[in-house]
């Protein structure tokens, strides 16, 4: 009896003792007192407690630098230009930074700890990024693996954004995932309809956020959204838009198209929208977009299936979306006002479409897409 107990007790006691030393030491050693954060050369100034990573400290002050992984240093999104000296780049940062960024002392804000006064530069639009408390108003299946989720904003109760921008869903810990993560999704709702946010979420097998949305999220649940982010929006030029999407890449274009239709935005732009899917069960919003095409003479919708099955009774274009795109650019699209590319989808699709577009005289700097996919 006695020896049964002493072993576990001594081990546990020793572990507890060491844990106690560590936590006491953590209090003493990691106490950096109050430090000053200076943003954009004196425009904003914060006095904060030191000792935590910059990303979290900024978030506590209501400044949300985009971050998809929640501060684990695995997405490389939370880049911030640091003007004061915070030591050389860490090996955990260098894989995510280009040589130019290394030279300008761009850092991953989740990896650098606030130990002394710091001066940083942030793009102005980040200050309009907010954290929204919302309730899930509805969840609809639009295909076998894509859900359309509508969030009703509660606090703040409206969002100002450009059609095409994205928000990040804060995924709370669930199941085997012990840490909260954030994932980016383009908004498919219109900027004019600013009391709610609609997202299209495709189930990615093994995906942390998509599994949560598809299997755990219910109507009425409270969810936090952070945004808006992103540089993907309709450009103020007369050039014709050539938009290509696949799967849930539909989202930003739905927002842009309905925005242009309802509010008459960018009236002189012609729009070609190519949407690719494998077979009929992956195709969605077909009737809505065809109806929109009838109401908007400047909008042309091309849906293509790469592997239509017999029961689809498909009469539209067939083939890979890149081949369909190339055929239309060569034969049907009027390029007299110039062309601009807008892409949303997997990195593979974006690369393939970029190749087709540049081959057909759309300049690389006129091809726009978000890189978070």
């Amino acid at each position, binding site marked *: 009896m006695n*020896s049964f107990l*002493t*072993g576990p007790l*001594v*081990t546990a006691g*020793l*572990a507890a003792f*060491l*844990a106690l*030393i*560590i936590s006491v*030491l*953590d209090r003493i*050693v*990691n106490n950096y007192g109050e430090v000053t954060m200076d943003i954009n050369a004196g425009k904003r100034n914060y006095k904060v407690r030191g000792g935590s990573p910059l990303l979290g400290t900024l978030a506590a002050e209501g400044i949300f630098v985009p971050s998809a992984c929640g501060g684990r240093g695995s997405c490389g999104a939370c880049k911030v230009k640091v003007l004061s000296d915070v*030591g*050389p780049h*860490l*090996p*955990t940062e260098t894989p995510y930074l280009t040589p130019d960024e290394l030279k300008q002392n761009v850092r991953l804000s989740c990896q650098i*700890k606030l*130990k002394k006064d710091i001066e940083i530069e942030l793009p102005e639009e980040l200050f309009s990024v907010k954290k929204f408390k919302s309730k899930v108003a509805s969840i609809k299946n639009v295909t076998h693996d894509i859900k359309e989720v509508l969030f009703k904003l509660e606090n703040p109760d409206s969002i100002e954004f450009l059609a095409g921008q994205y928000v990040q869903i804060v995924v709370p810990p669930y199941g085997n995932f012990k840490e909260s993560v954030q994932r980016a999704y383009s908004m498919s709702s219109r900027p004019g309809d600013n009391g709610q946010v609609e997202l299209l979420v495709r189930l990615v097998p093994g995906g942390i956020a998509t599994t949560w949305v598809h299997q755990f999220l219910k109507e009425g649940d409270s969810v936090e959204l952070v945004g808006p982010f992103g540089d993907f929006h309709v450009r103020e030029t007369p050039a014709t838009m050539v938009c290509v999407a696949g799967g849930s890449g539909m989202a930003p274009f739905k927002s842009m198209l309905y925005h242009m239709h309802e509010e008459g935005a960018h009236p002189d732009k012609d729009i070609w929208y190519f949407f690719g899917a494998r077979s009929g069960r992956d195709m969605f919003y077909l009737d809505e977009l065809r109806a929109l095409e009838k109401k908007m003479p400047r909008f042309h919708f091309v849906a293509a299936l790469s592997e239509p099955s017999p029961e689809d009774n498909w009469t539209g274009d067939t083939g890979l979306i890149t081949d369909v795109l190339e055929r239309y650019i060569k034969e049907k699209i009027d390029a007299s006002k110039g062309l601009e590319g807008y892409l949303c989808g997997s990195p593979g699709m974006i690369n393939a479409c970029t190749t087709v577009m540049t081959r057909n005289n759309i300049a690389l700097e006129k091809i726009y897409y978000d890189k978070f996919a």
Partner: protein
Amino acid sequence: MTPLINPAILFFASIFTSNILLSNFLGMCSFISISKDWKSSFGLGLAVTFVLTITAAVSWVVLHFVIAPLGLEYLSFIVFIIVIAAVVQILEMIIDRASPALYMSLGIFLPLITVNCAILGAILFMQIRNYNFIQSVLFAAGSGIGWWLAILLLAAIRERIDKNPVPAGLKGAGITLITIGFMAMAFIGFSGMIAVQ
């Protein structure tokens, strides 16, 4: 019973004649993966030496004042692992605060060291060979320096290998393992000169 070996000789022996890496083959994984680059090898070797010396001292105290009096030798593996993990954690915090420059060169290697078997190996040698405190600390420091020496030698050799044509099938791990084999054979030349038991 404490062996009568002179601590100074033990220190020398653990560097050269019973090198923890090239005679006992402990700590191989980080040895192979980090030795690509001389600077990182230097940092990791320094960290191993540092952590090994300190954990050996702490473990000796725990062994002789907690484990042995209670007759819990069968738990020593678990206890040593806990001690190593805690000491590494504490060292990381202190270095981070006290010397950012040292943290930059050591910092990322410290968590790696928690699972470096050379550390646990040297501490277990200390236990089964019944070293006293002075012997333990010097043996651990010597083992660390020996490991450091070995990884620096390999890193230097690998930098030269990189500049030479290696048959395609042997590139990377293949030629490295062959090189380590030669190095170990060279170190066997020292073996038996000093008995460390």
